[in-house]
């Protein structure tokens, strides 16, 4: 398809675990064979619980962490084979917004310098032009140019996240990886930021990879949604289809566990037993079989692959479906 902006194929990221005496070296498979593509102008949501590898996926895509295996294609170009200089050139188009607006801004830099830095690195414009761009971008994210001379501590969490967004936007990227951008914010501020992200997408034709643990937020902002569990993508579907008829038992449990702000909501709650297994020793076969209410013999042995279920574009990795 020509409108595919980013393609991820069998992406893998393994982290070595500190070797102990008399124990063989092992690895944590944070991302273990994840494939998906994102179309131009689309928002792909990636949900999952802590440790499922969703943030690592985002970072490996941008090559902030080198992948262990697999490929990332941006506009048909292999990012994996690029030299450092070529990659730096492409970084203009690939940006990230981090979760913690308190930790991701240098407290000793003025907002002006924080926002100017990406322009300087990429050698864009004269000093005058850069300052003008900084003021412009501050207006765009709803802060006002007069804030340029302040320091990060003078801002609230929501305002800092606006600055983080401005920093990622100032190079006019095509793809933004938003890694839990509203998780640290209060409800009333969260909705301001979500609206801003949507407005910016419309205005600049942005493509988002939106990573979050919050199912409602992901549903609100995404076109398609991928669900991750223990480093693997277990389900991928357009959001209407995913939320209306989740096919994977994990997605079903996740959706039923999310509290709903309606005291009269009656739901069949599936309460999973136990914890997420240690990613250094993931279960054989389907990684979810230890907690799955429908686990069968094959699930313990054979690892399921993503297969299409009813209708187009709805994929699930589960032995209950397909053949």
């Amino acid at each position: 398809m020509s409108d595919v902006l980013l393609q991820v194929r069998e992406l893998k990221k393994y982290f070595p675990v500190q070797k102990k005496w008399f124990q063989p070296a092992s690895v944590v498979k944070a991302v273990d064979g994840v494939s998906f593509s994102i179309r131009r102008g689309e928002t792909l949501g990636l949900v999952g619980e802590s440790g499922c590898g969703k943030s690592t996926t985002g970072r490996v895509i941008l090559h902030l962490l080198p992948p262990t295996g697999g490929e990332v294609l941006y506009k048909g170009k292999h990012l994996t084979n690029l030299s450092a200089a070529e990659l730096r050139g492409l970084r203009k188009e690939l940006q990230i917004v981090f979760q913690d607006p308190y930790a991701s801004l240098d407290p000793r830099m003025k907002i002006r310098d924080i926002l100017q830095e990406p322009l300087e690195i990429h050698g864009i414009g004269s000093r005058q032009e850069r300052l003008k761009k900084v003021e412009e971008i501050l207006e765009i994210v709803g802060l006002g140019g007069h804030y340029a001379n302040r320091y990060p501590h003078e801002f609230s969490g929501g305002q800092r996240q606006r600055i983080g967004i401005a920093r990622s936007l100032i190079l006019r990227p095509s793809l933004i990886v938003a890694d839990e951008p509203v998780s640290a914010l209060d409800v009333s501020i969260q909705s301001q930021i979500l609206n801003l992200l949507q407005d910016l997408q419309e205005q600049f034709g942005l493509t988002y990879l939106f990573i979050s643990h919050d199912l409602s937020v992901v549903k609100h902002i995404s076109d398609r949604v991928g669900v991750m569990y223990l480093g693997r993508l277990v389900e991928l579907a357009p959001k209407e289809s995913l939320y209306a008829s989740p096919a994977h038992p994990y997605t079903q449990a996740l959706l039923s566990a999310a509290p709903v702000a309606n005291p009269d909501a009656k739901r069949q709650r599936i309460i999973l037993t136990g914890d997420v297994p240690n990613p250094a020793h993931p279960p054989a076969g389907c990684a979810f079989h230890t907690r799955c209410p429908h686990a069968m013999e094959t699930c313990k042995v054979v690892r399921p692959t993503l297969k299409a279920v009813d209708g187009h574009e709805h994929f699930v990795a589960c032995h209950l479906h397909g053949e």
Partner: protein
Amino acid sequence: MQPILQVERLQVTFRSDDGEVHPVSGVDFVVHEGETLGIVGESGCGKSVTSLSIMGLLPKGIGRVSGGRIWFQGRELTAMTPKEMQKIRGNEIAMIFQEPMTSLNPVFTVGEQLDEQIRLHLGLSKREARQRSVEMLRTVGIPRAEEIAKEYPHQLSGGMRQRVMIAMAMSCSPKLLIADEPTTALDVTIQAQILDLMRQLKERQGTSIIFITHDLGVVAEMCDRVIVMYAGQVIEEAPVRELFQHPQHPYTRGLIASIPTLDQQKSRLYSIRGTVPHPAKMPAGCRFAPRCDYAQEMCRDNPPLKEVEAGHRCRCWLAEKGGTTDVGRIAAGS
């Protein structure tokens, strides 16, 4: 129902760089026997400071109760000596916090920490205390309880640690349990397990619970009654169903309208403009007025918390006049 806890015109003063501030100013509420009261609000609204005042755990030398009273089963907590307070704390009133790792001591095993509390408050022998500890760990659904009792907090997962915290809190069968964002740090599937556990314990032991959270979904599932706090004040109080069906205060309505839900689909979310006021620069009059779409001349005066219906109180001049606002208009984002 008997009130078990009464908070009357509570005011808390903190010393800060900006002089004296009042993170809680004039808070009134009661908790009845066997009920779960939710306290909702965003960061800085004073919900955690309120709970620390009840426990007598305000940071020494920085914060103090500077006005009002707190009554627990006919005894005035605010007039007690630290020693008297210590007898009540952990025994009759227990608390669980958001981050179980910071509330457990990393150098003692889980069992040792449970034993200590049980021996201190119930006066049991070492062996009896350990028995009770293991029993409590089993009650909160910890598998292999005897072995887990010998483990250190860092060896457990987040959900397990929170179960240990709950076991500790419940070990002396408290009359009142204060849970301050107990599931905020947990994943949804683990959160569902913990909420389920708290409901079971409440039914079995008849404990009253104060459930502090910013998550309206959790409130809807756990609470019988809710108070909404904003900038150190109670701005609305109602039974849970009434609050979600007929919210009166523009802030409560705004909060409900600004959460994305799984059920309905809105292309744009409602958002309350501006931010929470700084505690040293509280607006005169209604504290929400600078962010309110309906602010008027009369909002320059501070509105009282008035009953709008039986059991439903609201701090807004408009609500008092019979409620001229409606959620539809707010949700449309006018």
